[in-house]
């Protein structure tokens, strides 16, 4: 089966029976139905916290950015991290050392995080009074795209060493991004990074996303990223207060699962 050119596909009307003697059962349900249900429960449980789902290729610098974020944001906001990897708890240890309660999800062979894994992981965290929860997804620009984890913001990262056309190669994960982070700008010149071409690719695929150009290593450009998180945290807190005033019962968080 080759990849079809979707423009040539003729959509047959639902209910066409190709098997003699068979009958049609309409289902019309998303394959994500179960995950989306758990994600909605997560969203209820996360009510008071701003929740990020950070995705990128392996090695783009997710953990490095989060280490700096924990150190610099941690002075005025409480931050906790859930981090997914196929193996090892190295990243959770790094983030814990940076000062954030961190839970490692070891996925084994699974190439992405699902809402249920996150629900189990946050059982080990105290969400009460938590300002920001960051979910660092498995390093992968394909598989995590379809799984809603219950986050408020999807953050997609790329680094200057990866090629300017990354957003064009992995459109779905950039298209769904609320924010796009371009990391390692301190070495952009050394690797011949074409900034205009990269930003053009981001703007074409994700015209609505906020873009941050920064270096997690040197700290260049990180202030704007932290201000963005503080602003989003304020907006989230204000919306929760507004909802709570309208529906007092909603203050009781639903258990995920």
């Amino acid at each position: 089966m080759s990849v079809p050119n979707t423009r040539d596909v003729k959509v047959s009307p639902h209910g066409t029976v190709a098997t003699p003697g068979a009958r049609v059962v309409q289902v019309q349900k998303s394959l994500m139905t179960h995950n989306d249900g758990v994600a909605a429960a997560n969203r209820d449980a996360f009510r008071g916290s701003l929740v990020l789902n950070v995705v990128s290729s392996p090695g783009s610098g997710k953990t490095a950015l989060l280490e700096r974020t924990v150190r610099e944001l941690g002075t005025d906001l409480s931050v906790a991290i859930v981090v997914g990897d196929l193996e090892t708890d190295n990243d959770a240890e790094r983030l814990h050392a940076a000062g954030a309660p961190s839970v490692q999800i070891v996925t084994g062979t699974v190439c992405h995080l699902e809402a249920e894994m996150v629900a189990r992981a946050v059982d080990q965290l105290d969400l009460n009074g938590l300002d920001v929860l960051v979910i660092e997804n498995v390093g992968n620009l394909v598989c995590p795209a379809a799984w809603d984890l219950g986050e408020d913001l999807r953050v997609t990262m790329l680094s200057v060493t990866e090629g300017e056309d990354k957003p064009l190669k992995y459109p779905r994960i950039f298209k769904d991004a609320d924010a796009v982070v371009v990391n390692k700008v301190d070495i952009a010149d050394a690797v011949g990074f074409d900034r205009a071409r990269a930003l053009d690719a981001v703007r074409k695929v994700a015209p609505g996303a906020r873009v941050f150009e920064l270096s997690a290593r040197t700290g260049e450009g990180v202030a704007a990223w932290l201000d963005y998180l503080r602003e989003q945290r304020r907006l989230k807190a204000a919306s929760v207060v507004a909802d709570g005033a309208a529906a007092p019962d909603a203050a009781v968080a639903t258990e995920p699962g």
Partner: protein
Amino acid sequence: MHEFSLVMSMLDLAEKAARADGARRICAIHLEIGALAGVVPEALEFAFEGARVGTLAEDARLEVTYLPAIAYCATCQSEFELDNRFGIAVCPSCDTPSADLRQGRELQLAHLEVEA
């Protein structure tokens, strides 16, 4: 290889729907997959071959309809089909980029063909 997770979810939904209908065999599973859903057809087929063993869909055909990506242009107030596979949604009439994707992310179990 997230297609395996998708296939497990698909078989779960399909078996529940078939059993609720009193069916004992699923002859065909009809899926609708959006152009930007990030699904590799070969990986989907491969996962299905392995996962269907021992289910009501053990001998079922997998029929996939691919849906084109469609975006909405707020300036022209009209929908347009993306003419590329890069997810670039630029209105062909007024050249404005659009972030409003109306179709293309679908991962939908549409219907089954079953036998009693």
